[in-house]
């Protein structure tokens, strides 16, 4: 946060509209709308996939056709018309770039506007970035440096071609195709995403990062991320997302699978800022995502998310604590404003002995939004000495929004220790008056109070991301008190 000053924040606050709402004028290769076996075959052939991949897709599609949309979430929306979506759209020059210099200037400009200028990233932060626009991964930086360590970090399609043994071994092992409606849909039509493998005993020396962007209208984005940390490996992975401002609702249904083998650690951070729709609730992204990780013995998976975008969010990054002594963590800030709806939380499934999980969830609701925490802590009968601590706080701004908490606890082993704390509060007039009396503007005061409230979660984020997240929180809540 060293070079980010209050003046910057002030400037950002003035820039209160959704600032990622532009569209890049890049010719794209978009297939006809609709969803059937032929479309799936077309996607697969466009991606020059091997047969096993096509079979996987077709099986998933068959399963999906037998499923119905889940309706248990505390969200209301018009169901997507799956026949009216184009399931594949790629920037025309979809050949993988050999080097950063080859990237289309228009694309570079897009990345620059998003604040992820790669030159900058490369030079200053040493973050390796994979950039996924619409359906296709367009650039991955730092590849050679990583490959010296045996780390594989590439687009999912590339992994299918270059590392089929790893993809086949792990894909779908944490989230089977039949897991849920949207996971099945993703398994059938996913177009790209990121793949990452850290070999035994290797500590990935830099943050790996993927930036997801929906550009085309009338499309959906279905990406898949698979991260494998082999025994004793460590990786910190970041994910960011934005989309142009459109009147229509666009569907984003991703699947993220994490595999932490013995003694491995995966830290997965997301700053989700899909277009949330306008002030009247028109447009915005439906963010229906399945994220889950599996922990082998003594391993650890830590999810951190800052959710400020999307019209509707439905997402529960979870951990299956399979191995003894494994640890799962979930840190979340979910902000909803205007007509946004979020139903988010986590599942901690304790299977192994002496497994531990921590859940810290901070919900902030403003405007006419609805914000729900939904979490499950499940202790299986062999999970001796399992421990869980959950803290779910809700902050309300104004009197037209809603905050809801749905905690579920299922415990089948008497030695378990489970703690749950929950609070609901409002930003106090007294706090605002105190801040203003010290010379702070209302916006600045709210930003300070909210960031203070979320501190435990923001502290989990890598530095650059934490700054970005703070700005986002302030912008998302602009003008919401009073």
């Amino acid at each position: 946060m060293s070079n980010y000053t209050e003046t910057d924040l002030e400037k950002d606050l003035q820039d209160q509209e959704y600032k990622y709402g532009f569209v890049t004028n890049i010719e794209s290769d978009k297939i006809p709308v609709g969803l059937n076996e032929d479309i799936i075959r077309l996607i697969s052939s466009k991606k020059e996939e091997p047969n096993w991949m096509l079979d996987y897709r077709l099986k998933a599609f068959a399963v999906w056709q037998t499923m119905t949309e889940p309706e248990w979430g505390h969200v209301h929306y018009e169901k997507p018309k799956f026949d009216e979506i184009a399931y594949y759209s790629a920037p025309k020059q979809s050949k993988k770039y050999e080097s950063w210099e080859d990237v289309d200037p228009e694309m570079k400009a897009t990345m620059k506007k998003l604040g992820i200028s790669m030159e900058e990233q490369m030079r200053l932060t040493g973050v390796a970035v994979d950039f996924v626009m619409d359906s296709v991964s367009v650039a991955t930086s730092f590849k050679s440096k990583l490959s010296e360590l045996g780390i594989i970090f590439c687009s999912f399609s590339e992994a299918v071609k270059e590392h089929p043994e790893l993809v086949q071994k792990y894909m779908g092992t944490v989230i089977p195709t039949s897991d849920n409606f949207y996971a099945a849909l993703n398994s059938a039509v996913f177009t790209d995403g990121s793949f990452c493998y850290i070999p035994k005993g290797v500590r990935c020396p830099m943050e790996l990062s993927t930036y997801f962007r929906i550009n085309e209208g009338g499309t959906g984005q279905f990406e898949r991320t698979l991260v494998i940390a082999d025994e004793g490996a460590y990786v910190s992975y970041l994910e960011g997302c934005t989309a142009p401002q459109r009147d229509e609702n666009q569907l984003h249904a991703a699947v993220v699978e994490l595999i932490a083998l013995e003694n491995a650690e995966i830290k997965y951070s997301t700053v989700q800022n899909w277009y949330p729709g306008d002030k009247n609730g028109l447009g915005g992204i439906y963010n229906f995502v399945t994220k889950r990780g599996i922990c082998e013995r003594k391993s650890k998976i830590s999810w951190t998310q800052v959710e400020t975008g999307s019209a509707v969010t439905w997402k529960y990054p979870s951990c299956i604590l399979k191995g003894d002594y494994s640890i799962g963590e979930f840190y979340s800030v979910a902000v909803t404003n205007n007509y946004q709806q979020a139903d988010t939380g986590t599942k901690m499934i304790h299977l192994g002995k002496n497994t531990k999980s921590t859940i810290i969830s901070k919900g902030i609701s403003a405007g006419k939004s609805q914000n729900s925490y939904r979490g499950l802590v499940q202790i299986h009968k062999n999970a001796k000495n399992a421990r869980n601590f959950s803290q779910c706080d809700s902050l309300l701004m104004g009197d037209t929004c809603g905050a809801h908490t749905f905690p579920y606890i299922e415990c089948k082993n008497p030695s378990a220790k489970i703690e749950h704390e929950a609070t609901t509060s409002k930003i106090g007039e007294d706090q605002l008056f105190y801040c203003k009396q010290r010379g702070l503007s209302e916006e600045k005061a709210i930003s300070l109070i909210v960031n203070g409230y979320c501190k435990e979660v923001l502290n989990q984020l890598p530095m650059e991301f934490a700054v970005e997240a703070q700005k986002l929180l302030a912008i998302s809540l602009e003008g919401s008190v009073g």
Partner: protein
Amino acid sequence: MINIVNLHAEVEEKKILKGLNLNVKAGEIHAIMGPNGSGKSTLASILAGKEDYTVTAGNVEFDGKDLLELSTEDRARQGLFLAFQYPIEIPGVSNVNFLKSALNEIREYRGEEQISAKDFLALVKEKSALVELDSKLASRSVNEGFSGGEKKRNEIFQMAMLNPKLAILDETDSGLDIDALRIVANGVNKLRSPKNAAIIITHYQRLLDYIIPDFVHVLYDGRIVKSGGKELALELEEKGYDWIKEELASNAE
């Protein structure tokens, strides 16, 4: 510095101030005393700009400007500081971050440059020593988990950091033990200068043993009913407020 003329104010249609006059010049310290419910804290809140109160008549000139026309934050930026009777907690926001933000907003308002990290830290060090505030408290969340005495010291620390033209201390002595009282008073005295002024609202004469006021006023039933030098405070301590009430009653007859 500040000139309050015929100020009337009410909250929820209950009249609290009923024609209050007070003129404070630069370099002066005024103490306002009075029995419970006389309107002392209301006066502090109104001057700071708290929205719960409605001013129904009168005007307040602060440093050449119409104070009542200014927003709460602009009053602060113009140099008005209120030390709260009950300082507010802001969880997760460190004292230094809070003050740095405040200081920079005030500087920006005045067209001054942002303070550098180095200068800011030096200032924190200097001013926290003034109120013998542990440097650990400076990095803790604003008032969270502070003891009563620490909260009051923190108010004076903030005041020292922001260097206001006019400081209003609302019952800063309440809940302080004798050592804390001495430290707080010491801090206020060191900040005293011919360029600034202070209004000290208090119940007891005790604080005025340490901070010697130039004037003492008695606020009763929404008006200043008696003014004098520091000896008035001693008289009040000795005789209570009843004699003033009686005096008023006999004058009215």
